[in-house]
């Protein structure tokens, strides 16, 4: 997996992890993970709870700090340089399991906070942009409400719209549907599928195997902080190579 190009070409990965390791104290939760994600590629990460999926994608926008290996996003290496962290974060949107909307701001203010403060947009433009994305996630009528007045599914769609308002090239999703009731999962997945069809680069941690089958270009299976296997969905679901993958799929697909 050695690359020797010095400028970013069309086919190059936008996100590239090389032997990334991370420790919490003495506990190693990522073991030499390598991963390449090309432009417009959609990667689904799955694996048992505690396997390091969240940690992995949180390292990509430096909500966590890795100790070994390298992470390169759009040709910029992730170091502790504030400028490059800032630049990388502007390019990456992130959606959390428990939404993390700002409860003291209206839905509209949640959406315009980033554009006005970090992208120096006029309020009118930011409002327009926000409404555009609220329409995209199909809840423009909720703009003046506060997050906690919405259902879980609506909140998660607001969170997606909030990330989109930064007009990122890459979106990270950390189990976006795990905190939702079954009837709300579909509305969020539909939004994500539309996003995928629009050509967004996405890394999605999820156990929704239907979603993985429909949109993923690649499915990555993790266990115990290691990348066990990675394959296109047909191959991954039809003919998994590793015993652990098979056991995991058996368990998850039985339900």
């Amino acid at each position, binding site marked *: 997996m050695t690359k020797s190009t010095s400028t970013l070409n069309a086919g190059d990965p936008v996100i590239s992890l090389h032997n990334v390791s991370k420790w919490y*104290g003495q506990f190693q939760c990522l073991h030499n993970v390598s991963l390449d994600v090309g432009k417009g590629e959609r990667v689904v990460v799955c694996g048992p709870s505690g396997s390091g999926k969240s940690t992995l994608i949180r390292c990509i926008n430096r909500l966590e700090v890795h100790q070994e*290996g*390298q992470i390169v996003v759009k040709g910029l290496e992730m170091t502790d340089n504030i400028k490059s962290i800032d630049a990388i974060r502007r390019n990456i949107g992130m959606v959390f399991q428990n939404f993390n909307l700002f409860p003291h701001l209206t839905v509209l203010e949640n959406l315009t906070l980033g554009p006005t403060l970090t992208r120096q947009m006029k309020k009118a433009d930011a409002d327009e942009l926000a409404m555009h994305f609220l329409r995209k996630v199909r809840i423009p009528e909720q703009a003046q409400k506060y997050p906690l007045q919405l259902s879980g599914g609506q909140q998660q769609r607001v969170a997606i719209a909030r990330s989109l308002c930064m007009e990122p090239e890459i979106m990270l999703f950390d189990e976006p549907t795990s905190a939702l009731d079954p009837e709300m999962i579909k509305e969020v997945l539909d939004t994500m599928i539309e996003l995928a069809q629009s050509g967004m680069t996405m890394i999605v941690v999820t156990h929704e195997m239907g979603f993985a089958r429909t949109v993923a270009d690649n499915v990555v299976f993790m266990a115990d902080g290691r990348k066990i296997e990675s394959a296109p969905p047909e191959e991954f679901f039809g003919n998994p190579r590793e015993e652990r993958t098979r056991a995991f799929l058996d368990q998850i697909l039985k339900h």
Partner: protein
Amino acid sequence: MTTASPQFPAALPAYDPLARISAGDWLKKNLFGSVWQGLLTLITAAIFLRFAWFVLDWGVINAVWYTSDPDVCRAAAGACWAVIVEKHRPMLFGLYPYDEHWRLVLMMAIYLVTIVVSLMPRNWNLRLLVPLWVIAVVSIGVLMFGGVLGLRYVPTSEWGGLPLTMLLFTGTVLFGMPVAVLLALGRRSPLPVARGVSVVFIEALRGVPLITILFVAVNVFPLFLPAGVEVNKLLRITIGIAIFFACYQAEVIRGGLQAIPRGQYEAAASLSLTYWQTTRRIILPQALRICLPAITNHIIAAMKNTSFVIIIGLFDILTATTAVMQDPLWRKFYVEAYLFVAGVYLFFGYALSLYARKVEGWIASGRI
């Protein structure tokens, strides 16, 4: 330092997780993370060490531990702990007749044994506690008042010191807790009149300082009683502090009551339990467990609040110490004396909060 290429040249130096716990790294992480951190640590450490050295130098190295001659203390550069040795009896026992102090020592022993025994869950059955408390109350009463068994009679106006603080505190909690529960229930009652009475009572008393309530207990309360009826001043004051305590505690308990889900009331109703059955068996046990930490805080506050009696002239441990410090020979060593009193309060406060933490543990593990 950005590399504008997805190249992977030399890897980062190998990371050794075990190295993280070395003493050097602990220091780096917790004390010297950055230049500012380091500077802050150095300044804090300098001030702290200076202070610690002063305490050691003054309180131990140059201190006088035992002498009955204040001039020895005056000559020394350090603390005069001898003032506590010399004056411990008036400080601990106040105005109580000097020759009868042994009765107070005995009383405190009985008191502490009773309390400690009562606080242990394995003793929580009425067959043990009722006789224990009857014996304790009677013997403490006999010891304090005297007048029987050849003991000299001592009126309450001569009681004082630590025993008085203990009695005030115990009386406050024993009398205040039931009142607090009633007020809290009243405030959540389905009866509007009960709600109204409780709200006005609680809010009015929480709105005024404790001193004004003590003034009422001392100066106004006697006017409320019919001619010829008198209530002992110590008792009036205890009731005053207790009611003040109850109003704050009632608000805490109300918080606990509010945390009980509706389903509990509905389940009790479906078993056709009455209001009092539901309250006593279902609601209160849960509510009190929920708000135990806050209850403890107010109990500790009640102990501190007993010191307010200095203003109306009861001789608790603080008043007694302040009076002792009028002695021109020893007056100079007030810091040592007040530190001793502060230590007594800190000790009992700490013991209470330790016990409360234990109880919280028992609750969490389902033992009680």
